[in-house]
């Protein structure tokens, strides 16, 4: 049934509230792609089997962001706060489910308790469960502030009434009934929201120009072609809170005067595609997509376009070419896509996170939103913090927070007691920042100034066992494959950069290599056609800038200080430390270890493939990289 007015919205919200806080025990398994990868499906099955025939509501939700501790399950005992259980296996889940069904929430495996109030939307007043840490006190969540991810992990993704219960579609209702398109644009402009896909262009200004541009129809596009290695915030929003994106796009469409939208989502995100398809159908059924939204004469609908796995299709012009069915290659943007984009018509393209922010900005007001963040970057940003860090996951923090707080406060520091070495921000064409940049406030301009970039929010943390030349090599080899190959500097230049860096990692670096790298980087950055090429030298430039001596050690001393580049060391047995146990002999996959009982082991270099297994299995540190 179509929702026509506020009363009907309230009615759905009431249903949603009851679904979020039923008067029965409720168990919700977090089943985003990350959760499933950690075994959430098996956990769900175990719980379903145990709860079969009992008076318990079993449902699914998206991801709460704490991916390190998945699979996670939210448990509600009526009258209490949700208790979130973590690190579950089917066996543990089965045992715990038996207790939950009796109204008990034991502290075993309990990560935290959370009230929906904690996420800034009013719920019922609720009793705390003693002995379980509160959400706000957890280091991982303490300095987080959730706007784009306000619902992810809390609501059932495809239950539109739960989304409405948490304030959904009120922004759209207000926009359509009380604001002119110009007023909406003014509001977004005032909020100083900048595009979260990487460019950081002011969203309000983009909308203003697009509204003013001549030509019809106009299009809105949601860029969900999230291709950066190690970045998955857009996927999580799509899977955990699809309606926030749909509502944001509808508001944007009204503002610029469009009635047709596209979500360009990569085919490698099957669950996100499936969720968005279902969410679009659900929204249509409720009259929240289609003709005459809320009984007004504004109509808007969305189609899904799936990407074929090209990184470059995250670039706006390549993305539009791809939607049109052409080869996904960028074109020059001297005439902006806001004037001539998809099918040469005015087009507004924003990324998933930007769209998800829009309804919240309308609801909280631009003034409130602009209070969050720094002078040049307002609001919050979701980062996917991954790598050699204790708490892998998605964190949404106010702009201006320091890298140190993200990595050591929220992230819990480096694993295995190792030292921090660098953090790579902004995806493959971002840069690596060293330890002395840790106290830098994170915002668009600071990161760019330091030679990296915000990008879409990937953050890869590296420890002292990482070789920075090897890191540059990794990102370059990614970019060599993902350059579309249209313009010379990007196609040929990155390939040459990669060749030089590869040579350095193989111990064949030449004294003039550093100069060649700088020279090539400068030309690629200056003369490439699109932003992929222009930012592609960043991994090289930033590592040369901050870790120059590491390059020099590789080139002049033929040594890899981190012990990563296998061409520059051999494994040798330290006879004084060897206890003659023979474990290296037993584990070596290439028969390179000579050992007999009571004899010190020896490694035959000709056979050794430097896989490092002997080094890892030796309990006495008797195998050294020399």
């Amino acid at each position, binding site marked *: 049934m179509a929702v026509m007015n506020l009363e009907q919205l309230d009615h759905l919200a009431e249903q949603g509230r009851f679904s979020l806080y039923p008067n029965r025990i409720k168990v919700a398994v977090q089943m985003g792609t990350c959760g499933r990868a950690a075994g959430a499906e098996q956990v769900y099955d175990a719980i379903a089997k145990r709860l079969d025939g009992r008076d318990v509501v079993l449902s699914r939700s998206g991801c709460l962001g704490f991916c390190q501790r998945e699979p996670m399950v939210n448990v509600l005992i009526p009258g209490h706060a949700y208790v979130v259980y973590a690190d579950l296996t089917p066996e543990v889940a089965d045992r715990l489910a038996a207790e939950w069904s009796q109204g008990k929430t034991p502290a075993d495996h309990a990560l935290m308790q959370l009230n929906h109030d904690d996420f800034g939307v009013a719920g019922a007043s609720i009793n705390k469960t003693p002995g379980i840490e509160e959400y706000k006190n957890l280091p991982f969540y303490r300095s987080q502030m959730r706007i784009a991810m306000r619902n992810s992990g809390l609501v059932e993704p495809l239950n539109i009434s739960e989304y409405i219960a948490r304030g959904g579609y009120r922004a759209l209702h207000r926009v359509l009934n009380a604001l002119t398109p110009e007023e909406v644009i003014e509001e977004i402009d005032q909020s100083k929201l900048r595009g979260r896909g990487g460019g950081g262009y002011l969203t309000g200004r983009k909308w203003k120009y697009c509204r003013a541009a001549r030509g019809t129809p106009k299009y809105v596009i949601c860029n969900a072609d999230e291709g950066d290695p190690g970045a998955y915030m857009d996927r999580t929003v799509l899977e955990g809170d699809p309606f926030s994106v749909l509502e944001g796009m509808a508001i944007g469409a009204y503002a610029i005067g469009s009635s047709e939208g596209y979500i360009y989502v990569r085919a490698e995100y099957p669950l996100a595609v499936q969720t968005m398809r279902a969410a679009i159908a659900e929204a249509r059924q409720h009259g929240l997509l289609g003709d005459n939204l809320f009984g007004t004469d504004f109509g808007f609908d969305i189609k899904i376009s799936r990407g074929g796995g090209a990184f470059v299709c995250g670039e706006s012009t390549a993305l539009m070419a791809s939607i049109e069915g052409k*080869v996904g290659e960028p074109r*020059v943007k001297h005439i902006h896509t806001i004037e001539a984009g998809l099918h040469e018509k005015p087009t507004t393209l924003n990324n998933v996170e930007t769209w998800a922010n829009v309804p919240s900005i309308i609801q909280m007001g631009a003034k409130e939103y602009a209070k969050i963040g720094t002078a040049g970057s307002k609001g919050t940003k979701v980062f996917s913090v991954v790598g050699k860090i204790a708490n892998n996951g998605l964190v949404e923090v106010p702009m201006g927070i320091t890298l140190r707080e993200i990595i050591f406060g929220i992230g819990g520091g480096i694993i295995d007691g190792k030292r921090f070495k660098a953090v790579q921000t902004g995806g493959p064409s971002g840069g690596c920042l060293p330890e002395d940049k840790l106290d830098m406030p994170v915002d668009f301009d600071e990161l760019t100034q330091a030679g990296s970039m915000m990008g879409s929010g990937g953050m890869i943390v590296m420890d002292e066992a990482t070789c920075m030349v090897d890191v540059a090599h990794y990102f370059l080899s990614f970019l060599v494959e*993902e350059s579309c*190959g249209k313009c010379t500097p990007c*196609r*040929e230049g990155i390939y040459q950069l990669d060749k030089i860096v590869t040579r350095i990692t193989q111990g064949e670096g030449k004294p003039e290599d550093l100069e060649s790298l700088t020279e090539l980087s400068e030309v690629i950055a200056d003369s490439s056609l699109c932003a992929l090429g222009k930012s592609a030298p960043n991994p090289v430039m930033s590592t040369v800038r901050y870790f120059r001596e590491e390059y020099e050690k590789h080139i002049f001393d033929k040594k890899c200080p981190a012990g990563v580049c296998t061409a520059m060391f051999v494994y040798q047995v330290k006879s004084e430390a060897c206890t003659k146990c023979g474990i290296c002999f037993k584990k070596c996959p290439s028969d390179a270890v000579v050992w007999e009982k009571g004899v010190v082991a020896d490694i035959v270099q000709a056979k050794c493939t430097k896989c490092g297994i002997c080094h890892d299995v030796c309990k006495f540190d008797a195998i050294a990289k020399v």
Partner: protein
Amino acid sequence: MENTLLKVEIDGHRLEVTQGTTVLEAARQLGIFIPTLCYHKALPANAACRICIVEMSIEKRGRAYSWIDAACVYPVEDGLVILTNTPKVIRERKLILELLLSRAPDSPLLKAMAEEYRAENRFETLDKGKSKCILCGLCALVCQGPMRVGGISMAYRGIHKRLISPYNLTQDICIGCQACAWVCPTGAIQIKEAGTNLHLENWDTRHKLQNCSECGRAFAPIVLLEKVRERAGKDIKPEVFNKCPECRRKTHVFEEKF
């Protein structure tokens, strides 16, 4: 708006041009030479080779901006100052040339340009020396655009990029017009003619040539003549198509209408 003249300065020379004029066109109006490879007047600018980069600067809202960009596509803005030959431009152009040389070291045009810029062939690539192609894409553009055939297109990504016939198979949609070879800046398209056989080696496509009904010389692919006849309509006498250009001129020059 469309009729306003924009003031532009190129290497110290001032000029006023209409809206939509590119930097390259403006420079040519002044007789200033900017090298190009993937630019062809008859085709939309692809901006792929980047050899035509120049330094641009402009003052906007009290701030000075300066950057490097391709002259062939950049539309002139009012107050734009362009430098086509600064040491930076020359240095970057030289490097781009060296990158192109590594891909197509045997192209006579590239060799000549390399001499001018003192560029060396110092980089290695996947298929060094195998081809003269610099992947500028002009052949595909002319085939898909003005010729309305689509017998060539870009395939694969990045360093693996190639110009191929549909599905990389011996194709039957080529009309043998050879416009691809005509627009190719580096002479990368190999066409062999032997008797009445025409062979486009790059795409292993063969055509039979029509013999001139007057002099007997083989002069154009039969499929091409058919295509031209189709497009020309019925006004032109059919026998015109069987004559080579020279004989056509001789026999039909005094007719008012073919």
